[in-house]
């Protein structure tokens, strides 16, 4: 950098600092505007957040132009406009819409609020005036202070002080600007993909625990609304309203179940009974539903459906247990979460954030009130403790208690929300009945396929071999040369028949699986796959033959899918066994975006695994990598009894 450029840089830095400080002051008003606007909901909560992105975007541009930091846009790409299904509806998850507006609205809402960059933007707006603002404002403030001193006190001492302050301001300009850029990068740059350090992950965990406690303190309000709705429905029009209210509540309760599992690791299974089939009309057009020793005749289908739904919800104990949980949420949360949520929320928002703002405002205006006064009035003993210290201490106390309280709440919830033993058994019977039906269907279909293949393939070919040999027998005395040619034809036919049999056998039970077991069979699959395939096997023994076959065919199908669709160059297969679960994972470095459609190969794998309580999960974010994991609960036999590798070899 030339001398001239350096002079320009030092001259320019305070001006830029002033601009950035002004920008920082825009953050909180915009934050309040977004908050109010998003809660007003018009035209959409997403609208205000999306428009609000202009301020961070400006900050990013300025950081790039003035600080030389490249801060690419961290936002996820906007969702595509909804597409119309062939039947004329627009689909969004499980809901159908006639118009394109609601799904587009919902997709936009999800896009904005599920983007972690949104939270980081909002956090930046709240924090920037406290961190970035002072960093940017210090240099111009020193210069302005110097000028003001020189003007007000033109004495030699005053002038010396003024020159010193102004020079310090000019000298500090560029480094402070760099520090400001670095701060901007903390929240506004796309989050790095690398794993956070130990300190950062501990901070993240604490923040999450605090947020979970605050959410757990607020959500019972929603539970209370559902509980009230159910109580009103039961009191007013039970048959018409209650089932609908129950189903609405179930969505909320199921969501909480999942959340509790994610927050505390206490997994709570869904206890609900499956919905009964629609009632069938009698020949006279009426519907007869029996319930215990009595029954009712319904004249219309709607009434019959309503009655059956009512019966279904009333007789499912889970409905009543859900209601009890909804009713108990408020008192339980009040006992468990009110105090820690107040400590965390009050400590951080009131005693830290608001304290900083009132402090800053009191410098400019004559404001004398501070949140610290409230604290000191409430707890006289804390008179000597500064408000932010007390606030941070309170928040730390709340966060420290959070995991134990969340776990306590999770265990209490599980007592009501988990299926009862009877419900577990009833569900299990249902699952077994349907999976047994599917398995026997699949087996029958498989046998039919084998029968057809044998009938049309090998059997037909051997009939032809027999006929050809018969022809040769007649020819052999009259025309030995022709007979030779005919016999050669018969030989070729029998080779073809053998080839077909080989393929058929491979489809029933691959020989290498029978000979060597799952590990080597999967290695063979990997060798045959037309891409780089790595196999890691860590199995302490062998699984039962049907399970080995199911895993083998599943891995085979997954590898075939990778070769066909993923545009991958490498794939790795891992077989492991842990806590009674045999797990096979197939990971490729392809383009991702795979979906398990109905009727596809993945559907076939799921059906095959069904009979063993096996589960196939697919993770395939756009851009890859795709990981398919299948898990089957099973026992492994010890390797001694399962392989015969020692038996076959002679001992001499």
């Amino acid at each position: 950098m030339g001398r001239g450029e350096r002079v320009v840089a030092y001259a320019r830095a305070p001006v830029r600092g002033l601009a950035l400080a002004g920008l920082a002051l825009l953050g909180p008003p915009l934050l309040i505007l977004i908050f109010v606007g998003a809660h007003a909901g018009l035209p959409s909560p997403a609208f205000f957040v999306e428009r609000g992105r202009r301020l961070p975007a400006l900050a990013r541009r300025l950081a790039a132009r003035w600080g030389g930091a490249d801060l690419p846009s961290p936002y996820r790409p906007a969702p595509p406009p909804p597409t119309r299904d062939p039947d004329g509806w627009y689909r969004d998850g499980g809901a159908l819409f006639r118009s394109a507006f609601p799904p587009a609205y919902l997709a936009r809402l999800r896009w904005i609020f599920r983007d972690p960059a949104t939270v980081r933007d909002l956090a930046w707006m709240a924090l920037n005036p406290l961190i970035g603002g002072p960093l940017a404002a210090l240099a111009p403030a020193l210069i302005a202070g110097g000028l003001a001193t020189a003007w007000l006190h033109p004495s030699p001492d005053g002038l010396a002080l003024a020159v010193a302050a102004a020079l310090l301001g000019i000298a500090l300009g560029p480094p402070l600007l760099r520090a400001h850029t670095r701060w901007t990068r903390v929240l506004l740059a796309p989050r790095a993909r690398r794993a956070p350090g130990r300190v950062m992950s501990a901070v993240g965990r604490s923040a999450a625990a605090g947020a979970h406690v605050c959410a757990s303190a607020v959500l019972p309000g929603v539970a209370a609304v559902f509980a009230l709705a159910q109580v009103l429905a039961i009191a007013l029009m039970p048959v018409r309203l209650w089932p609908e209210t129950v189903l609405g509540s179930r969505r909320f309760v199921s969501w909480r179940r999942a959340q509790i599992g994610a927050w505390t690791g206490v997994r709570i299974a869904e206890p609900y009974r499956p919905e009964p089939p629609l009632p069938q009309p009698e020949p006279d057009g009426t519907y007869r539903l029996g319930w215990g020793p009595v029954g009712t005749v319904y004249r219309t289908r709607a009434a019959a459906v309503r009655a059956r739904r009512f019966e279904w919800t009333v007789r499912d104990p889970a409905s009543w247990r859900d209601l009890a949980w909804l009713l108990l949420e408020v008192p339980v949360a009040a006992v468990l979460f009110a105090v820690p949520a107040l400590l965390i929320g009050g400590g951080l928002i009131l005693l830290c954030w608001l304290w900083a703002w009132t402090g800053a405002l009191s410098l400019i205006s004559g404001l004398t009130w501070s949140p610290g006064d409230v604290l000191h009035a409430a707890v006289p003993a804390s008179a000597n403790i500064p408000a932010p210290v007390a606030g941070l201490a309170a928040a730390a106390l709340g966060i420290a208690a959070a995991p134990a309280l969340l776990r306590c709440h999770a265990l209490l919830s599980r007592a009501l929300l988990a299926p009862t033993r009877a419900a577990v058994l009833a569900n299990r019977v249902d699952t077994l009945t349907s999976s047994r039906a599917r398995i026997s269907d699949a087996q029958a279909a498989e046998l039919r396929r084998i029968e057809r293949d044998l009938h049309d393939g090998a059997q037909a070919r051997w009939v032809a071999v027999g006929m050809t040999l018969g022809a040769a027998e007649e020819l052999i005395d009259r025309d030995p040369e022709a007979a030779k040619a005919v016999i050669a034809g018969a030989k070729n036919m029998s080779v073809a028949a053998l080839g077909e049999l080989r393929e058929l056998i491979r489809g029933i039970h691959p020989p290498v699986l029978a000979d060597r077991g799952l590990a080597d069979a999967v290695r063979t699959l990997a060798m045959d796959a037309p891409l780089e395939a790595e196999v890691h096997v860590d199995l302490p023994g062998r699984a039962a033959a049907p399970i080995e076959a199911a895993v083998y065919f599943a891995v085979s199908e997954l590898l075939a899918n990778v070769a066909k669709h993923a545009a991958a160059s490498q794939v790795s297969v891992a077989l492991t066994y842990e806590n009674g679960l045999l797990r096979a994972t197939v990971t490729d470095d392809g383009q991702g975006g795979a979906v398990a459609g109905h009727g596809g190969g993945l559907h076939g794998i799921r059906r095959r695994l069904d009979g063993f309580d096996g589960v196939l999960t697919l993770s395939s974010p756009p851009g890859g990598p795709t990981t398919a994991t299948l898990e089957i609960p099973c026992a492994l036999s010890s390797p001694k009894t399962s392989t015969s590798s020692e038996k076959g070899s002679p001992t001499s």
Partner: protein
Amino acid sequence: MRVVLAEDVYLLREGLTHLLRAHDVEVVAAVDTGEELLDALARHRPDAAIVDVRLPPGFTDEGVRAAIEARTRRPGFPVLVLSQYVEQIYARELLADGAGGVGYLLKDRVFDTGHFVDALRRVASGGTAMDPEVIAKLLGGTSPLHPVASLTPREREVLQLMAQGRSNAAIAGRLYISEGTVGKHIAAIFAKLGLDAADDVNRRVLAVLAFLNRA
């Protein structure tokens, strides 16, 4: 030539014995388990062994294991393994010692008596005889980034035949081209795969198989 035959199906054992005898190959012992095979090899010291993959008592891969065991006791001992199906994994295990004198063929190939006996003689003299299906699988299991993908279709054909263990003359006859052309193709293949060209046919084939095995 004297061979020991390990095959548990009576009809096939008898059939093979007759067939080999008709081509001046003496079957000094015909056994039906892996252990008996190793005993017979120790007792008769034959020129080669013909082994079925599935043998009693387990009917899994006893034949392959006995063949590998025989070759660790007598390195380079010629073994021709027969099977109803071919798998890369067995081919790789048989070829792993890099010593040659290995054959791995589908049982169907026995129908073509001339070729079968040719393959046996090639194995007995330290060459290799790999089933076309094994070679197709070895080639099919390579990724598009593998050097094999850079071969022309004709070079691929030559490579397949060469990897099966066939001589230049046999390849020329199969593809209806001159031996000189085969030589040129082979030189091009070795250059593309980055292998050192050897004059000896057997060593050359083993280099190719080792290369494919690595993939």
